[in-house]
Every structure is written in structure tokens, then in C-alpha cells.
């Protein structure tokens, strides 16, 4: 699965999470905005973490060299 596909998956998951939070915890406009902020921040953080690790492995400069004890 490529980079863009997984990014889209993260976006979809974020969207679904925000919608379900809006449905389950609907507590007025201010609280809804807060929940939306939290979900978006979490999605962005998780996506960034995954993207960094994925991009770092796309064109690696070194390869695993097994050690003797393996």
C-alpha cells in the first residue's frame, strides 16, 4: 500500500472518529468544537508519526546486516 493510500486511510479514520464523537457526545457547540479539535490533533499526530517512519524507510541508505548470534 503506497504512501497516499494510507494517508487517505488516516484521513478517513479521522473523519469517522469526528463524526462518531459528534454523534455520541453531542454537548453543545463549544464542547463539540473542543472534541473536533482533539480528534483532529490526534489524527494529525498519529499520521505524522506513521508518515515519518514510512518515508524514512522508502529509500534507505543502509540495510540490515545480520549479527552472528541470529
Amino acid at each position: 500500500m503506497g504512501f497516499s493510500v494510507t494517508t487517505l486511510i488516516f484521513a478517513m479514520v479521522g473523519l469517522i472518529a469526528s463524526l462518531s464523537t459528534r454523534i455520541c457526545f453531542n454537548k453543545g457547540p463549544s464542547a463539540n468544537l473542543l472534541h473536533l479539535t482533539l480528534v483532529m490533533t490526534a489524527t494529525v499526530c498519529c499520521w505524522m508519526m506513521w508518515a515519518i517512519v514510512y518515508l524514512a524507510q522508502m529509500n534507505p541508505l543502509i540495510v540490515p546486516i545480520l549479527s552472528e548470534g541470529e
Partner: protein
Amino acid sequence: MNYGDTFPEMDLMRSEKMSFVQLIIPVESAHRAITYLGELGLLQFRDLNADKSPFQRTFVNQVKRCAEMSRKLRFFKDQILRASLPSSVHPGMRPDIELEELEIQLAEHEYELNEMNSNSEKLQNSFNELVEYKIVLEKAGDFLVSSKGHLVDEDRELDEHAYLNNDYSDATSLLELELQPEPSSLTGLRFISGIISQSKVMRFERILFRATRGNILFNQSPADDPIMDPLSTDMVEKTVFVVFFSGEQAKSKILKICEAFGANCYPVPEDMTKQRQLTREVLSRLSELEITLDAGIRHRSKALTSINFYLTKWLIMVKREKAVFDTLNMLNFDVTKKCLVGEGWCPIFAKVQIQEALRRATFDSNSQVGIIFHAMDALEAPPTYFRTNSFTNAYQEIVDAYGIARYREANPAVYTVITFPFLFAVMSGDWGHGICLLVGALYLIARESKLGSQKLGSFMEMLFGGRYVLLLMSMFSIYCGLIYNEFFSVPYHIFGSSAYRCRDNTCSDAYSAGLIKFRDPYPFGIDPSWRGSRSELPFLNSLKMKMSILLGVSQMNLGIMLSYFDACFFGNSLDIKYQFVPQMIFLNSLFGYLSLLILIKWCTGSQADLYHVMIYMFLSPFDKLGENQLFWGQSVVQVILLLAALVAVPWMLFPKPFILKKLHSERFQGQTYGFLGTSEMDSDSEPGSARQHIEEFNFSEIFVHQMIHSIEFVLGAVSNTASYLRLWALSLAHSELSTTTSKILYINFGYDNIIIRLVGLAVFVFATAFILLMMETLSAFLHALRLHWVEFQNKFYHGDGYKFKPFSFATLTDDDV
């Protein structure tokens, strides 16, 4: 530039709007009004009598009475504890009683208890003395029987048993033991019998000897059981003694020595029948006393139980009353002495509720005059009040621990809710440990109601207070553990097979040249082939360092963006033009560019050395890049960015102080022009707030402040970015510790012996629980906290506000009693 109309406002982002209010309360409804306001808990009173000592205030007598009552209640509590009665769980549901009635009741109960206590003490003393007397009679009787060996007596008994009991002291002169009844015979030999604690017996004997020059005979016999000493109420081992002596002088000496040693002397008649009679009397009195004592204890328990039933309710009531009177002491009497005037802060949304409470108070106290409640202008800044629920409360406390937010400035807690557990997880990413933390957090949350009502130790209380933080920390830990592919440092092929394989089928050069990558990167996380390889550390170090820089630059940019939103909100266009813009330019032209280079290097797989690129961007920007070229036109871009950064520094340093000076002088000059025509009315027509601003504008102070701020930002850009490298350092440490503990387990399981396996398992569990779960968790928590408090918050947060502390019964603690 107010976006408030298009978007709904988020309450947690900025503190509640507060209003300074004044209350004018007629005296008859004052107490009730304050009580209802205390129940509501949304008004912070300002102390109008701060300069008066506690004894000069109006309601000092009532406060003293409350303090006296709480002392009595503490006394009751102490007595109940001593009598080891179980504390009542369900407080009595009696109808409310007035404070004066309660006072009288408490005084009565105290008097009763004190009397009961002193009576039982006296009875207990007599009881103990009688017990001693009984023992003295028993043992001394034996001595006297044996010593009357050859006297004429009806009941003369050569008691062998008595001989054996006697410890004859090594008296230098054995006296003739010719004891006679009262009309003393030739020798005038008499005796004193008593009881003394066993530890003092030897010295007692010695001193008696010396004092009487050896002219005594001392017999002793230890009592069988320990007895309660009348004076010290301890159980002491005692010894019965009998001293035979002759002469008046000896008697007085012996008596004095007995007194000095705390020995109790009891008269024992020599006559056997009299002894027996006396013993019988003593025994009967003892049993009577026992019955009386028991009755006394029962009576006391009954009284204490009835007090215990209402004790908690009384305690709460007295606490509340004291708080109400303390608050009433903060109000001022007005000129007519018929009203109390109070000032305070309240949130704007609470105004309706407060007015409702005040109306109720007026009605309930049958007052003719209503309570006046209106808003006023205040000179000082309002307090900061965030309405948090049990989830956001922990995060708000974390932010507040560094500094309370200024009134209505951006609250970092909104983002801290997610970024704090996230950065924690980056530093301690292992989904095995994450699952352990999750179990702990879920347990705390499941037992929320039970643990919330108990009194916990300080460590448990902190842990319980942060249960939602722990929950999020554990969830992010599991996520990061899946990304780092570490389950107690063991990787798994959860998301498919590895992207690396041997070059050929024999795998001959796997140990020298390594594997090759033959397909797309591992879809989620770090490839499992890396674990255990020789090039694991170089790869992971490079990855984690670059990750730290990327995460750090993002968080710092978020901080600067928040400062932009603050400047917009307060309408401070000066800050936007001369602080936000140069800060963004400076940070991003240097470290944003570095992040961009990192991403390009990853995407293209170039072998450029980024250290070299960044350093030579400053040292020799016009040199050819050669093999360090990552994209076309890089040298031109670098020169432009360098120039932009150099321009940004004076941009954030110089214009703002000069413009502030110009603005201030404009305003000052404008006022002077305005008042030319009416110079006499100068002091009357100026509003009070303006009077304060015609302090002199200290240009040098403003300039130095701006210089410090700019230097802090410029140098901080480098140091803060480097500070984010702790994300790399701690995650490396965690991974290494985890590997070591797992290795111990693995080595120990290599043996067949069950004992070695068990020992290995025990060491693994112990090390994981204490070193990794406790120590590493605390360490990562601390470092994530520092990253938030310093690197994130110093981009936008002032944190010099003060907290809203309303007068509320709910926040009264036990210490206030």
C-alpha cells in the same frame, strides 16, 4: 479580525468572561445570602478589610464561637477514636438545628463527657490500688507467717512454701524475728509492707541498707502478673516487699525512701484472722468496683455513640458557619450601618444564578429591602476561570502548575490533552508496556467512584487524579509501540512480511554485506528485520533524530500560530506585524528549511550530508554544493533564506519599541491639546484609569524588554530545536533497557532447569515493573512535561494570571476546621 462570529467559541480555549460586581446586602439577610452564595460557589469575594487584624473585624465573636465549637467536636472525635467505636457511615438525618442550639448542645455533651472521664479515672485509680493491696496482703501474709516461726499464735503454720518464696537478702545482721501484736515487746520490731515496680527493687534495697546501716531485714516476692500502676496507667511488673526494722528514726527514713521510689505502702495486720478478714473485704470491694467501672464504661459508650451519630453533620455545619462568618468579615458596613457592602468577581454566565440566590435569600429572611447586585469597573485584571470536567481537569492542572493563564489568553491545555500523551509515547513506545499501563488506567477508572470517596495516600492520590492522562498515555504508547515494532522489545510481523531479504538463496553475505530491499517499505512501522542486526542503531538513530526535529518544529510552529491568534483576539496589530511575522520567518527559514531537507532526502534517497549543508549555509553560502545538492536551485534558495533570517532579527528587535513610544506620545499630546480650553477641570474630568497611564513611558525599559524577548527567541530557536532531541534519547534508552531485560529472560529460558527459569522470570517481571514501567514512565512523563512547559509554551504563553477562587462550600477542606 474577529472570527468569533463565524465559528462557535470554544470555552476551554480562553478563560471565562468575568465581571466585577458589588453587592449591597441588608444586615438581616446577610448571613442567609452568604450561605446561599456559598452553596452556589461562583463568586469570589474581595477582602475589603485586608488591613484590619483578625480581632478588629466585625464578626470576630462569631468566628471565635465557631472555633470553640470545632474544638469541642475535635475532642469528641478524639474520645470516640480512643474508645475505638466504629465511625458512623450514615450520618443522622435530623432536621436542621440552629447554630446557637448546637452550641448549647455541644457544651452539655462536653461537660457530661468530662465528668464521666474524671469519675472513671478516680474509680480506676481506686481499683488499681485495691488490686495492689490484695497482692500485698497475699504475699506479705506469707512472709509474716513464716517469720512468726516460733511465736505463740493460734494459726502458727510452718509454711514450707513460704520459706521457698522468701528471697532472704544478704543482711549482715539477721534480726531476731520476734513479731508481736500492737503492744510492742522488747525489741519493738515492726515492719512496713508495700509494693514496688520490679525494675527498681535492687536499688531500693541497697539504699534502704545504706540508710539504716544494715539494720533491716528485707524480703521480697514478685507478683505473678503485671499490674496496672495507678499513676502511670501502664502494665508494670511489680514486687511485694516487707521491711522489718526497729526504731522511729528507721521508720521515717524507710517511709521517705519508699515515697522517693514510688513504692506504695499498705498496712498488713500481723494477725492471721485479721489478714483473712481484710483480704475478704478487699476482694468484695474489688468486685463491687469492677461492676461500677463496667457500668461507667457502658454509660460512656452510649453517650459517645449518640454523639457519633450526628458528628459528621455537626462538623460540616460548623465548618460552613465559620466559612460564612469569615466571608462576612470581608464585607464592609456602609455609612448607615444597616447594610453590608461587598465586592467580588463572578463569571458573566453565573450572574442569573447569583441573582436568583440573592432573591431567595431576601425572601427567606423576610427582609423588606432587596439585595442590590450590579457590575462595576475594576482596576485590576480579572481572575482566570476555566470550566473543566473530570477529563480536562487533569490537563488544566498540568498547565496551571507552570503558571495560571492570563485573563482570556490562549489556553495551551486544549492541545496539551493530545500532544502531551503523544510525546510521552514517542519516548516510551512499546506496546507491551502500553498494555500494562492501559490495564492500570482502566482499573483506576473502573474504581472511580469507590476510590474517589476514600482518603488515599499522596502517591495514590496523584495517580488517581491523573487517571485519564494515564489512559491517553497508554493508548498512544500502544500506537507508538506498534510503529516502533516493539513488544517488550521483540518485533512481530503483524503487518505483513519484511521488505528485506537475502541477496541470494544461500544468504552467504547476510552477515557481511547485509540484506536488500526488494519491495515497498513495511506498511506500518519499522521493519522487523532491523531488530538485532548490526546496523540497527545507525538506522534507528538517524530515523529518531530526524523524527524529533520534525515533531519539534511542528510543535513550535503551533506555538507561534497560537501567539498569532492571541494577537488577533486582543486586537494587537503591532504584535502581528513586528513579532509574529519575523518570528515565523526566522524559525522556518532555518529549521523549517532543515525539515524540508530531511523530507526531500528521505523521498529521493540522496546521500547528501545535512549537517554539512546546514553549517556551510552559514559559513560559505556562495560555495558550490556538489554532491550535497538535494534539489535544483538549492544554493539560490539557501542564500535567500539566510538573508530573510538575518533581516528578521532586527525586524523583531527595533520597530516595536519606537512605535510604542510614538503611540504613547501621540496619546499624551492629544490629551494636552484637548484640555487647553478647560485647564481647571483637568483633575475632575479625567477618569481614574487614565490617571494611572500618565505614568512616564520608560523607553529604555521597553527597549530592553524587547531585546531580551528577541534574543530569547533567536537563541531559543536553536536550543529548543536541539532540546527536542530528547525524544530520540529517551526512546533509545527505553528500547535498550527493554532489550536487556528481555535478553535476561531469553537467556534464562535457554536452560532446562525450572528454578533458573523461575528466577529469570522473576527478574524480568521485577525489572519491567519497577525500572521500565515506573522509572521510565516517570522519566518520559517529566521530559514530555518539560517540552510542553518550556519549548511549546514560551512561544505564546504569558502565564501571569491568578486563579478564580470562589467562595464555595464544596471546596472547604478538613484543614479549615
